[in-house]
């Protein structure tokens, strides 16, 4: 029999929602146990093997010096390292605090900040080489399955690069920007969710992060034209992927110049 790939699941600064999304694969959970040897998963297992892994799914951003050391160790022991979800890719929602001076953020919460060792929260790719990224807050279950299947077949996973708009068209949704003047992030946001929000009467907030090569400044101008303030627009781009190079100008608020 072929040896089962060894999988590890790690959590850094984040909410565990990506691991939960993995656990929500209830229908195939038992099959996954047949196909993979999950030998490190502290949220689920008490005996965890720390030797080496074929695949490591890493959830959460890096926000302390200790976490930098840990992710470097994991990289050394991992063949295929996956940034599992938006936090591991670029800090996600917690990265909104990167726009506030660190001491100010700490003073707001803790009377004594001498025991707090936090830094700006960034994706794991700032510190180690990453082999694949699973976008989303959280990534869609189907994307997780796609990645795991590809790992078994040893082929490149087919991960979507196009915007949410394409998925809206597949679902015959009316465009929320043109028809309702809503500030929908769909045109710059990576597909993969199946256009959940626009299909349910809500604008896309961008939780799958930037698509490949988006035109963010054009979208920011459209938002301005339909009546959103500069602060509103800044908040839109400083949300799930404010640290990304794709949204950098808009998040920095330089697009209007």
């Amino acid at each position, binding site marked *: 029999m072929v040896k089962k790939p060894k999988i590890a699941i790690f959590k850094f600064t984040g909410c565990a929602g990506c691991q939960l999304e993995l656990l929500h694969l209830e229908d195939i959970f038992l099959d996954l146990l047949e196909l993979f040897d*999950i030998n490190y998963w*502290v949220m689920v*297992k008490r005996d965890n093997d720390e030797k080496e892994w074929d695949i490591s799914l890493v959830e959460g951003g890096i926000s302390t010096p200790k976490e930098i050391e840990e992710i470097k160790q994991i990289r050394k022991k991992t063949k295929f390292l996956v940034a599992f979800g938006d936090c591991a890719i670029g800090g996600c929602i917690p990265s909104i605090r990167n726009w506030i001076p660190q001491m100010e*953020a700490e003073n707001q919460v*803790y*009377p004594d900040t001498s025991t707090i060792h*936090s830094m700006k929260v960034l994706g794991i790719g700032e510190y180690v080489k990453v082999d694949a990224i699973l976008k989303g807050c959280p990534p869609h279950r189907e994307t997780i399955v796609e990645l795991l299947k590809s790992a078994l077949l040893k082929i490149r996973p087919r991960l979507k690069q196009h915007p949410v708009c394409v998925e809206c068209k597949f679902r015959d949704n009316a465009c929320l920007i043109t028809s309702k003047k809503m500030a929908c992030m769909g045109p710059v946001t990576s597909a993969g969710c199946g256009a959940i929000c626009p299909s349910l009467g809500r604008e896309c907030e961008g939780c799958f992060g930037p698509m490949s090569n988006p035109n963010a400044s054009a979208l920011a101008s459209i938002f301005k034209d339909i009546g959103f303030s500069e602060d*509103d627009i800044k908040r839109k781009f400083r949300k799930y992927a404010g640290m990304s190079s794709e949204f950098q100008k808009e998040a920095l608020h330089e697009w209007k110049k």
Partner: protein
Amino acid sequence: MEEITIDVNYLARVEGRGALNISISKDGKVEDLQFRIYEPPRFFESFLIGRKYDEVMELTSRICGICPVAHQITAIRAIENALGIEPSQQTRDLRKLMAISAHIQSNVFSMYFLSLPDLMGYESIITMTKDNLDIVKRGLKLKKLGNDITDLIGGRAVHPVTAVVGGFTVIPSRNKMKAIRKRLVEAKQDAYDTVDLFSEVEIPDFERKCEHIAISDPKEYSINHGRFRSTEGLDIDEMEYRDYIREEQVPYSTALHSHVKNRSSFMVGPLPRVNINFDQLSSDAKDAARRSGVKFPNFNPFVSHLARAVELVHDIDESIEIIDRVPLKEERRNFICKAGFGAAITEAPRGSLYHSYEIDNNGIVKKADLVPPTAHNANNIEKDLQEFVLTLLDLSMDEITLKCEMLIRAYDPCISCSTH
């Protein structure tokens, strides 16, 4: 006797990153005991300042992947209290159904995945599958039911999207609700079997009388609305929370510790809920609790598992009731944004969750104050351990360690929440 030192550097089968350090001297005294939460904080209370009132539920959802629904509903209700919005009965019903579905998911996860392996002598649910496949399958099926209901009402199970200030962006279809109703009816037997299972497994005989707190309402089993009440006479409105509950920092934990003003630590969660609100449980849930042979009110923290199972029976009953009465009609959401302060307390699966916000005339958050269940419980977990560990001194080191971990897991801590 020998000195005893227990060091668990990364607690397994709990959400998030915490450790346990205990040292006991030769004469059997607890010299040092720390439930050391070292999960890096994310400073939600800082970066929420400057954000807009209508995205607060979306942002705070990301505090927790297991209980995003609880954070969303608490945030929405706090904002609605600030704006003076009174949601419709349909909105209240759908919010309750969504909250209950999250309780089903989270409590089943806690019972079957996180704690049952201890109680049945396995390292994890993964190794349990070999000899107990039917039990594992039942856990998966019940968890999926909870998720699918959240999915139906909220659009997705982790970080749902349809619940907004004033109501929902879309109302689920009658047909889909009917299909879910059928599955709920079928799941009732699984819920009874869960009660049986957790009344049969052996738990440590340990009781510590401490203050139990939960929200409470004479008319319903409180999840989203109610007065904050305790077994020691606390009975306050959610807006008065900060006059009675205090937090302090301890140097070894990134989670703040809570206590009742001029009193001690307290417990929140399924056991306090069942203790305080037993009369409001569905009649089948009450019967199941009575049949288990365990008496409520109960102050053994390990009975929390059984309390979750009893709640599961109730959750199924109440979900069916809500589906049968909710009209599922489209509603308009009309309100005016204005400055104000609003607070809300709900019952997350792990216990009482507090959010409060101050917003200005433009709907921009000026101040945020959040206290998740595990920040409420962290102090009490230590107090329990202080007494519990002394009952274990005849056991081997490995057994003492496991039993102490089991006590922590009985609280089902959500460490990411606690440090938010």
